[in-house]
């Protein structure tokens, strides 16, 4: 049987796959929510029905550890940490000059990330910003992609209060994790700005009173016209500095809601698709979720990098 054509598979295999797909489509159409509204209650066995999507926005507590409530999203975050640390340990505890497959995969990923950092931030700054940016990227993408595996949202346990809660929930969908990452990003951007420019010069970007005082001095020395115009420019400078300080703080909120909103919307979309036509409709949305996870991780890390580059560069070059 020739193996060319039909994506490398022989023709009967392709026909078989398409037949299985068609049967799954028909079964899920009839048993899902669409079928329920079209054909009414047909009395199908209960394992064929999907419960209505119920989104629990604050993540549910599964157990308590040393007085802290451990939610299902914290368990998932621990899982991502274990996966990332496990992969890195498996590669680095026996580094070879001619790399094995896992080692070359990890080297390719980290090399691409370092290249990205150095493209955006320059050689020296790129190497300096690389650890935090790469950690944020890898953590967000592992959280996002891990939450697509089976088991997330289907395993039930009973928690200490006796309710049935999910055991695993995507870590990025709990608003605390994006908030924590946004705070870390903010702290590091300010830290790098202060380290690069010196504390006073960096803070002078936000409290820009030099023009104002200079024009007051000009007024005292009798140069009225230059003084008054300089005064207005000084007031505008102070206002602009204040707005920049405000926008640094608003960035925390914007980072948080961008990641949280994208991930929660994706989860809702998947739950809805599974509810309507169980096995089949979720497939294109899984592809979308893979893409969205990658893009959001790239955005979070990339925006941290861009803001750090802006903070670490001299502000006078911008004003010119």
């Amino acid at each position, binding site marked *: 049987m020739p193996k060319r054509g039909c994506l490398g598979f022989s023709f009967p295999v392709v026909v078989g796959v398409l037949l299985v797909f068609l049967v799954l489509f028909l079964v899920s159409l009839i048993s899902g929510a669409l079928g329920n509204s079209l054909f009414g209650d047909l009395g199908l066995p209960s394992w064929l029905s999907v419960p209505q999507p119920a989104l629990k926005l604050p993540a549910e507590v599964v157990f308590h550890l040393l007085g802290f409530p451990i939610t299902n999203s914290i368990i998932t975050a621990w899982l991502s940490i274990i996966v990332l640390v496990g992969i890195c340990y498996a590669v680095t505890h026996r580094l070879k000059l001619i790399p094995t497959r896992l080692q070359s995969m990890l080297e390719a990923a980290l090399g691409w990330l370092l290249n990205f950092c150095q493209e955006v931030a320059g050689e020296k700054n790129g190497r300096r910003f690389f650890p935090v940016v790469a950690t944020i990227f890898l953590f967000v993408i592992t959280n996002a992609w891990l939450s697509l595996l089976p088991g997330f949202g289907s395993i039930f346990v009973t928690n200490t209060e006796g309710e049935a809660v999910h055991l695993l929930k995507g870590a990025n969908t709990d608003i605390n994790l994006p908030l924590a990452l946004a705070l870390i990003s903010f702290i590091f951007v300010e830290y790098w700005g202060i380290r690069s420019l010196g504390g006073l010069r960096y803070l002078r970007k936000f409290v820009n009173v030099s023009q104002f005082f200079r024009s007051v001095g000009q007024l005292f020395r009798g140069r009225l016209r230059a003084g008054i115009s300089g005064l207005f420019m000084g007031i505008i400078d102070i206002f602009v500095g204040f707005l920049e300080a405000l926008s640094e703080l608003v960035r925390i909120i914007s980072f948080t*809601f*961008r990641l949280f909103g994208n991930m929660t919307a994706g989860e809702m979309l998947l739950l809805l698709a599974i509810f309507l036509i169980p096995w089949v409709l979720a497939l294109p949305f899984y592809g979308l979720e893979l893409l969205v996870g990658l893009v959001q991780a790239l955005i979070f890390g990339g925006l941290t990098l861009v803001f750090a580059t802006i903070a670490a560069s001299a502000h006078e070059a911008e004003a010119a």
Partner: protein
Amino acid sequence: MDPEVVKLMAAGLCMGLGAIGPGIGIGILGLGAMNALGRNPEARGPIMTNMILAIAFAEAIAIYALVVAVVLIFVA
């Protein structure tokens, strides 16, 4: 009117109206990127990177509207 009805209507209006601006904004970004790519196909790397970055900014506004709509339906 029933508070339930008003909440659902508000959620629908919020997401619908909130998606107009970002939609147009992302379209304009795409237009700029296509023009730049047409003029200089060799600069594909920086153009695409900056376009994706700018699209993320515009999309965040739509996400804010989505979060408000979700809060209206599930929490309020």
